[in-house]
């Protein structure tokens, strides 16, 4: 086996140094009754060449060659080559949590730069070093809100990604929180509904742009939450934040989101990173790691994990979260991607999404399809009625090499005939014309 080095002579010398006769004897503390007496019944070992062939065969059973308009939370944005080059540096790839700062200045400084980028995107003061994904950071934010407000009800808009709502619901049971969903009215959330329901709420969570791609009246939603003494939590798409106002600039207390759009391949749903940023006053309630700047004995600037007394390894049952392993490598990818884009590239990416998405709306409308929320401004995604069961439409379109979008009936009643169509900067007008053709009634 090529992953280990010990020769038979090595093993003999080592057993002799230990003072045992056999490897078997090393396990003498394992009671007989719990020993596994057989060979593991798992498939036989493969050489590297065989392994590669086997996984290539599995991968070939997946369909990825289609022109894709499927988004719904995971988006086909371009990942630059420099991201891959940085991630394959073994010093980043094969390190663990930077508990020893003298050996870890590379990743510590990178996380500090990542925290800065997330704060700039979201308009917040502090960011953690990443959470698992865009769903769990929303649940984490609920835990912060419960501790901060002492209240136990969470409001979440129905126009928030269903994956996020489901995870918040699961965590809420453990946290002792009640979750109330606020329905949408014609594709966006009415601030009056939030105001009416927010009394005694710990937090109000909404998504901008929302799951339907529509722009919410986010400043008014935040105000409704704040007026009720609840924390306002915005779930945002990093790619949108070159064009859309940052949550910190319209009064939100916490911003969370799915980082996949910035720097990560879709990879069948993970691994990606979730980001979580907040106002300074919440810093001691944040879950997960935080990197801070300091100096060494010679006055040289350096970076360390800081405020660790929040965390499980010190505060244990009173910790702000149980998280330890996070998503640093994926967050690093996000930082590299955002550093390549810069403010101008981020803005242009957003503009390309909006422009192409508008082109797609026009193309579909010109073919006689009906937009579900025609009067709403959308970012890169929109809902369109396709005249029959959308899952069937997806199947038929895929036969023509086009994945036309996400059937909203999977999550919303009354929308069985509706597709959520995502258009990123990677789509072309020719591809959109093909979409219009295959969806044409």
């Amino acid at each position, binding site marked *: 086996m090529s992953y280990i080095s010990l020769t038979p002579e090595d093993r003999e010398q080592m057993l002799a140094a230990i003072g045992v006769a056999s490897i078997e004897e090393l396990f003498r503390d394992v009671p007989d009754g719990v020993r596994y007496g057989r060979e593991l019944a798992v498939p036989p070992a493969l050489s590297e060449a065989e392994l590669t062939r086997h996984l290539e065969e599995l991968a070939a059973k997946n369909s990825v060659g289609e022109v894709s308009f499927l988004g719904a939370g995971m988006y086909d944005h371009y990942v630059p080559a420099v991201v891959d080059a940085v991630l394959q540096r073994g010093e980043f790839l094969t390190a663990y949590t930077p508990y020893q700062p003298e050996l870890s200045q590379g990743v510590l400084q990178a996380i500090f730069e990542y925290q800065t980028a997330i704060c700039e995107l979201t308009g917040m003061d502090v960011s953690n070093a990443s959470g698992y994904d865009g769903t769990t950071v929303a649940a984490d934010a609920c835990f912060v809100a419960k501790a901060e407000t002492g209240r136990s009800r969470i409001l979440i808009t129905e126009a928030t990604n269903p994956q996020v709502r489901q995870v918040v619901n699961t965590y809420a049971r453990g946290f002792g929180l009640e979750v109330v969903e606020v329905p949408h009215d014609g594709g966006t959330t009415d601030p009056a509904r939030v105001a009416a329901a927010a009394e005694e709420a710990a937090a109000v969570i909404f998504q901008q742009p929302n799951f339907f791609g529509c722009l919410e009246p986010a400043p008014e939603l935040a105000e409704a939450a704040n007026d009720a003494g609840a924390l306002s939590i915005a779930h945002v798409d990093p790619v949108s934040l070159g064009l859309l106002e940052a949550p910190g600039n319209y009064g939100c207390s916490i911003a969370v989101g799915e980082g996949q759009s910035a720097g990560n391949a879709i990879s069948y749903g993970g691994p990606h990173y979730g980001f979580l940023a907040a106002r300074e006053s919440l810093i*001691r309630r944040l879950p997960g790691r935080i990197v801070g700047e300091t100096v060494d004995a010679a006055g040289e600037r350096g970076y360390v994990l800081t405020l*660790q*007394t929040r965390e499980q390894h*010190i*505060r244990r049952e009173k910790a702000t979260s149980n998280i330890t392993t996070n998503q640093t490598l994926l967050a690093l990818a996000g930082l590299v991607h955002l550093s390549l884009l810069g403010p101008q590239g981020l803005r242009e990416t957003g503009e390309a999404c909006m422009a192409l998405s508008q082109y797609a709306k026009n193309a579909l409308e010109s073919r006689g399809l009906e937009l579900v929320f025609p009067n709403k401004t959308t970012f890169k995604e929109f809902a369109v009625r396709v005249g029959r069961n959308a899952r069937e439409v997806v199947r038929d379109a895929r036969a023509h090499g086009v994945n036309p979008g996400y059937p909203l009936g999977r999550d919303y009643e009354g929308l069985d005939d509706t597709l959520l169509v995502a258009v990123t900067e990677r789509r072309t007008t020719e591809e959109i014309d093909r979409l219009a053709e295959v969806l044409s009634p």
Partner: protein
Amino acid sequence: MAASESYPDDLLYNAEHDWARIEGDEAVLGVTWYAVDSLGELVHFEPPEAGAPIARGNSYGEVESVKAVSDLIAPLSGEVVEVNAKVVDAPETVNEDPYGEGWLIRIRLADADERHSLLDVDAYRKVLAES
């Protein structure tokens, strides 16, 4: 500059390394040299709010160093009259002067008899010797 080890004999103590200085119907509370020496340099003091009730034997706040966090166990019951803002602002004051400038809170006593359950300096030194 950290203070050197001392345990004033005009204070009362509990086994959790908190001290109390009784002043009429009020008391000033803090933590002992032993406690701050074990924790290391303090970086944060999480105080109770003024006016809040505290109960003997229960936590009324926390102090933190870089690598540890410790509950503050009230030696006496009462109502918080004042929080030492200097320690909130500069927690290392406790390391420098645990019985003077580094006091933590002042309370109005709820029960004047509770003091009899606390340790005098000799009894507290015995606790230290056994730990």
